[in-house]
């Protein structure tokens, strides 16, 4: 435990000394802010229109569906590109500058190295996502959104971000070059993101399978206010798989 925390603290120090963390966090907040106001103005327009329709007995548009869900879904796309920026250096950089040799020959296990690094990224991601809670707070001033979908949506997107980070770390463990690590992680996450695209055309169980693998599909429930065991299991397995692969890659590295 002490070792995991020591590694994590050191990683956080590196994150906040380099411009990368600030760049990623402010970039994310700004982008989400942009999309938030976009969805909001769209919602306002739809509301005006539906006010006319409502006279004829239609449903009023729902603030949660239009704005909150939209923003959370957009977050996932942005995470596909930003998480690799946070994870690319984790292990690749350690190998490049020779500190990997220091860690391995210290009384610290590979598992502790991997968990310490993951914990530090998790903290950065939490801070990053938490900054966007500003927008729902604004929304509460403006209208009256349902709170549960915001909470469960936040939780779902955080889980998704952690899953992405875990995969990014695994990719970073296979190379000494952080640019390669970053690009390869983006491609991997992008593939995962679009995996449900062929689902409709293949049909049968394959459709179900591709749908199951899609993070967007798995976020449906949390975005509607339901924290389903199924989604937790999905993102949980993604995290465990990534950590496991990272550990294996690091253990194997010295045997070449």
């Amino acid at each position, binding site marked *: 435990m*002490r*070792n995991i925390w*020591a*590694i994590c*603290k*050191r990683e956080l*120090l*590196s994150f906040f*000394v*380099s411009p990368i963390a600030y760049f990623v966090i402010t970039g994310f907040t700004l982008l989400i802010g942009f999309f938030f106001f976009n969805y909001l103005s769209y919602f306002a327009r739809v509301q005006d229109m539906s006010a006319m329709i409502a006279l004829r007995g239609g449903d009023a548009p729902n603030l949660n569906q239009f704005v909150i869900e939209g923003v959370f879904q957009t977050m996932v796309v942005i995470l596909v590109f930003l998480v690799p920026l946070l994870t690319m250096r984790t292990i690749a950089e350690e190998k490049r*500058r*020779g*500190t990997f*040799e*220091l*860690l*391995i*020959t*210290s*009384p*610290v*296990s590979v598992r502790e190295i991997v968990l310490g690094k993951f914990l530090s990224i998790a903290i950065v991601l939490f801070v990053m996502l938490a900054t966007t809670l500003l927008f729902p707070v604004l929304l509460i001033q403006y209208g009256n959104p349902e709170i549960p979908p915001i909470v469960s949506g936040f939780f779902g997107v955080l889980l998704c971000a952690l899953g992405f980070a875990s995969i990014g770390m695994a990719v970073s463990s296979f190379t000494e070059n952080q640019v390669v690590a970053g690009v390869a992680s983006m491609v991997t996450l992008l593939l995962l993101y679009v995996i449900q695209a062929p689902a409709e055309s293949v049909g049968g169980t394959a459709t179900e399978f591709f749908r199951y693998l899609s993070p967007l599909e798995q976020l449906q429930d949390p975005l509607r206010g339901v924290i389903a065991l199924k989604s937790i299991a999905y993102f949980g397995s993604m995290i465990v798989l990534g950590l496991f692969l990272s550990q294996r890659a690091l253990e194997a590295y*010295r*045997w070449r």
Partner: protein
Amino acid sequence: MIEVNGLSKSYGDYQAVAGVSFSAQKGEVVGFLGPNGAGKTTTIRMLATYLPPTAGAATVAGYNIVTQADEVRRRIGYLPENPPLYGEMTVREYLKFIAEIKGVPRTEMAKRVDSVMERCFIADVSHKLCHHLSRGYRQRVGLAQAIIHEPEVIILDEPTSGLDPNQIIKIRQLIKSLGETHTVLLSTHILPEVSAVCSKVVIVNRGRVVMESELSKLSRDKSLEQIFLESVSQEDAVDAAA
């Protein structure tokens, strides 16, 4: 204590270390001497549990480097060929991190960091980023990192490379004093360094040990340089004849 028995390492077809055997006792400073590419770093990396050997065995501080690597890691201090520094940390932050992962008790941490900076002559750069250090200072911080937890066995890969003459003398004194109470293995290709700090010398060439001897037992009418050149060139001559 270090006991090495037929240790070998191959990179693909290329055999970098071919059955190296030697030993180092507590209270000894053993110089691991050899020309470039002789296999010094490779051997040291195996002893430090970084690289797994392809054949042979070794014990460090009484533990097998492969099957009991965790125990070995608790008992060694290791300075790799390139000092493993985190550029974005200050020297003090870095040494504190090292003390943490090497298991120095929390209550002693600050004291150890201060005393090791004193011993390695780096107190004046304690607030500098490692990134901004000169080559010699990097080397000294690397050395500090290797001894901060007072390990039983100290393994140093070219500890004086990049130091100025004045520092070389001071660091050699430090290593010599460490040798009185610890087991020290250091690699070098500087011959006078061996005579200055070591009590024993192991000469390697092309992955093989060509000579192992206490320094005091070496023949008096030959300089270490002669012995080194002879043992290295003999090997090469035999290889050429074959």
